[in-house]
């Protein structure tokens, strides 16, 4: 179609990078030349679909990509899954277990990929982990200290979908609500639907709070998949050209 562009590959422009806190001992943040893009949002917000489309687009444009997500580490993912099935973890333990999972993927996948100049797409990042814990009453400063190991992404997109719509999408797919995504461990309500609505509302509120601190981009997740993807591509193109992602509304 656009023949002059067909073989033209955009070489990403370097941008300044920093860790949120102390970072990882022995890994100089300056070496992390690739791009880190995080997509946040509840289950059913369309995260995975959007990431799959972004990977296709990015690879088509000649960029090497790597994907990471929660509970995917070699070190603890199985054990974490088992522990959650039994529902026997207290909140600090669960929080630290997830932090271990994140740190393992950070050191073994994210940092090496960034050093090698890859574009890393994170299917949720530290913000979901922090928000979940904050909704469970954990101390924000405590969480910030732990996740000070994380490098600041080049862009963070929060796919915002109201709880009422999330519940519809979840039922259309599974006909059942997830125990943890409904916050059943907190005891908000013995009614699962009620608990889901309360929990997701609290999560959304916490994300708004985190957005003010970390300045990520809020994306209206109620539009069509293509419309959302077009917005993400536009923003990411900007990031590759060395621009800052814009804070959405």
């Amino acid at each position, binding site marked *: 179609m656009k023949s002059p562009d067909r073989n033209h590959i955009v070489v990403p422009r370097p941008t300044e990078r920093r860790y949120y*806190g*102390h970072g*990882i*001992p*022995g890994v100089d943040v300056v070496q992390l030349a690739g791009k880190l893009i995080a997509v946040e949002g509840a289950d059913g917000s369309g995260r995975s679909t959007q990431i799959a489309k972004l990977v296709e687009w990015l690879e088509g444009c000649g960029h090497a990509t790597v994907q990471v997500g929660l509970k995917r580490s*070699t*070190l*603890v993912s*199985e*054990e*974490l899954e088992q*522990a959650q099935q039994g529902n*026997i*973890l*207290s*909140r*600090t*333990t669960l*929080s*630290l*277990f997830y*932090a*271990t999972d994140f*740190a*393992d993927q*950070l*050191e*073994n996948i994210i940092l090496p990929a960034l050093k090698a100049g890859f574009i890393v797409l994170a299917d949720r990042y530290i913000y979901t982990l922090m928000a979940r814990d904050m909704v469970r009453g954990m101390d924000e400063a*405590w969480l910030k*200290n*732990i996740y*000070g*190991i994380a490098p600041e992404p080049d862009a963070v997109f929060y796919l915002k979908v109201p709880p009422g719509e999330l519940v519809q999408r979840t039922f259309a797919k599974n006909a059942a609500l997830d125990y943890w995504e409904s916050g059943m461990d907190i005891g908000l309500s013995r009614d699962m639907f009620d608990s889901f609505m309360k929990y997701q509302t609290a999560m959304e509120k916490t994300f708004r709070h985190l957005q003010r601190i970390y300045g990520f981009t809020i994306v209206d997740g109620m539009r069509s998949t293509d419309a959302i993807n077009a917005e993400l591509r536009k923003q990411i193109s900007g990031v590759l050209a060395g621009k800052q992602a814009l804070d959405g509304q």
Partner: protein
Amino acid sequence: MKTFAELNFPGRLIAVEGLDGSGKSTQIYLLKRWLELEGLKVYFSEWNSSELVKAATSKGKKRELLTPTTFSLIHATDFADRYERHLAPLLRAGYLVLCDRYIFTAFGRDVVRGCPPEWVRGIYSFAPLPDLTFFFKADLEVSLQRILDGRPQLKYFEAGMDLRLSQDPYESFRIFQGRILEQYLAMSTEFNFLVIDANQQVEKQQSVVRELITQRLDLDQFRRAEPPAPLSLAEPPKRLKREVPVE
């Protein structure tokens, strides 16, 4: 940071710290036996022993998957599990809780591995300070000899091989332990360690420990309501069982 007493927990936590081979585990075992035989409510917890987290930790160690950061976090997870599930509830119930290693082990080891001290301390900030911390201070050579005599096969992380201090596990272990000892000594005043001379005989050390505990705690507060039933009475006598009518 406050102790359990300062936070009005009815129970008290006693921790022992020291290098591998300092004899602290022997001492806390003897302490536990004494307190139990006195009829007190006692619970004992060991570092790195949470059933839940153990599988992941041993996999990480065996396959050498751990970095200083994940080493630190996985041990914190283990500690948190024991803390939330056992230590805190038992301390609320007025138990004497004995810990073979507490947060200071992490403060020492993780910092030697290169983690920032403030980061490590921040992670463990959910845990109050022990009411008494015994530090078993043995000469470095004495501790090294005890370990190296008994267990010539040193494990990778135990020897601090991940720090690349030396290709030789024994040399690496010596340097690693030496650095941890420095960390302990630096923490000694800050955290009011009760320093026990671990070069002395076992009995001498134990009598100092018991003496200090008697001085600082009112042990009668931790007495069981009733003495535990002797083992022979734990099961109903067989004669009674036979009287149950058979249909």
